[in-house]
């Protein structure tokens, strides 16, 4: 088993820590993991992407260049990376900010209204975790419990109060994802 996941969005959408969350959760489940940012310019307002590799054998290249999974939090990210997803892969996107998706016949393309759901939860910054939850629900690559557990690793002590909102995001996303396929959108 070797899964390469790409997460992409605006700086500030929490894409980086969501990727770390996934890596931590994988590590706790005994997988080999690597997390790697494709950090934008030395400046603000750019796009922020990261790649996560989960594998049950040692990871040679930690670079995610042929992702099976794309989590796209905004339109530019979708456009930039959708084409890179390998046949048989899946794209999950934030339908609040991705409006045009185009055709990817060999790929499962799933819209998640993550911004809206995050605002319902009360914190727009948990949107990325909604989509991660959806991916976990959809794929079962790791358990939701591991992801929730890993929130402690990713959130520094003084931000632990954000755990409940993030847990809710993961869980509600997972519930959506477990519904599978187009039903999510």
């Amino acid at each position, binding site marked *: 088993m070797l899964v390469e996941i790409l997460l992409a969005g605006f700086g500030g959408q929490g894409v980086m820590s969501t990727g770390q969350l996934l890596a931590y959760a994988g590590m706790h489940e005994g997988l080999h993991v690597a997390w790697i940012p494709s950090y934008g310019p030395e400046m603000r307002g750019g796009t922020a992407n990261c790649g996560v590799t989960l594998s049950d054998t040692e990871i040679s290249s930690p670079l995610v260049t042929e992702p099976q999974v794309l989590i796209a939090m905004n339109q530019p990210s979708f456009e930039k990376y959708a084409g890179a997803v390998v046949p048989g892969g899946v794209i999950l996107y934030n339908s609040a900010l991705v409006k045009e998706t185009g055709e990817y016949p060999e790929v499962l393309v799933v819209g998640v209204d993550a911004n809206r759901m995050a605002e319902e939860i009360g914190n727009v910054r948990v949107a990325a975790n909604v989509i991660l939850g959806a991916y976990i629900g959809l794929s079962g690559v790791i358990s939701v419990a591991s992801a929730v557990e890993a929130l402690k*690793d990713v959130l520094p002590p003084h931000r632990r109060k954000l755990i409940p909102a993030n847990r809710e995001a993961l869980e509600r996303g997972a519930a959506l994802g477990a519904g599978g396929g187009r039903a999510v959108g």
Partner: protein
Amino acid sequence: MSHLPRVLMKGNEAFGEGAVRAGCRHTFAYPITPQSELAHFLARRLPEIGGVFVQAESEVSAINMVFGAAAAGARVLTSSSSPGISLMQEGISYIAGARLPCVIVNVMRGGPGLGNIAPAQGDYFQAVKGGGHGDYCQIVLAPASVPEIIEMMILAFDLADRYRNPVMVVGDGVLGQMMEPVEIEPGETRTAPAKPWATDGQGDRPAPNIISSLNIVPEDNERFNLDLAVMYAEIRRGEQRCEEYRLDDAELVLVAFGTVARVAKAVVDRARRDGIRAGVIRPITLWPFPEDSVKRAAARADRFLVVEMSLGQMVEDVRLSVEGEKPVHFFGRPGGLVPTVREVCNEVKRITGVMPGAEDVPAATGVDR
């Protein structure tokens, strides 16, 4: 009690963690992407353990603070990325000339000039041929994973003290920014050997110590340089390090370091699935270059493919080792791009003729120097 044997750590933090485990308590640095987390980590960590982090006003100043701290006998670190390392060249030459031990981290980025902050290996020549003036050499280590960064940092401090010479540890943006699991070690750290030559105040010594790189009489300076040469020869004999991966029966030998070596290993795995007997030499010491390993391989293998994130720099050292015995090919992505497994596989197929007739078509991004 939920007790974690492992944490996910950024490469940049691992440089700092490795330094701490090596007993380094003094760091002088100036921020620069993509290595700033190293400074952030140590700015928090060092004061907790009685150490000192000083943010210098520039890299020029940082390397000279390192000079002073090393002269005073400390295990001392600085860290930067390409443009900042260029600014340190005078200082590094002075450190080599004053026979001071220190460790310098270069998390390389795309050049030349301001370039960008993407991963690159275009500072190989600067690191191994001597970017500063004069005939000095620095030991250069190139880890390829986050846990290995920690290991290499400890080795770096040991080598620096053993030879009283600067040691550079090079990474790239990928290595600096990626996270991998790292074992949490018990708290103990190494200590530096005694340094009776240090300028730490005369105290009970019979005479003052002097640290200087000035040898105004040419004959003295020649003697100094020849002594250095003897030491360098010793290092070249004794400190070559590399990883050999699936090399035993390899007809094609990929040579790559750092991040690219991981790509190369994945390429080898894939190529072998296609029936191509490939292997990897991953130089861990860039200087001294593991020429013995390359020479041995040159006796057995059919050809070499050097892969770098540059226009081709280490390839010269491979050629110097191979000495015309076997063809040495090159594939590089300069300026901030990491070669992908797929494109290196294509290059492998092209040069091994598995894609027949492709031999003479230059690869899109392969540059033949």
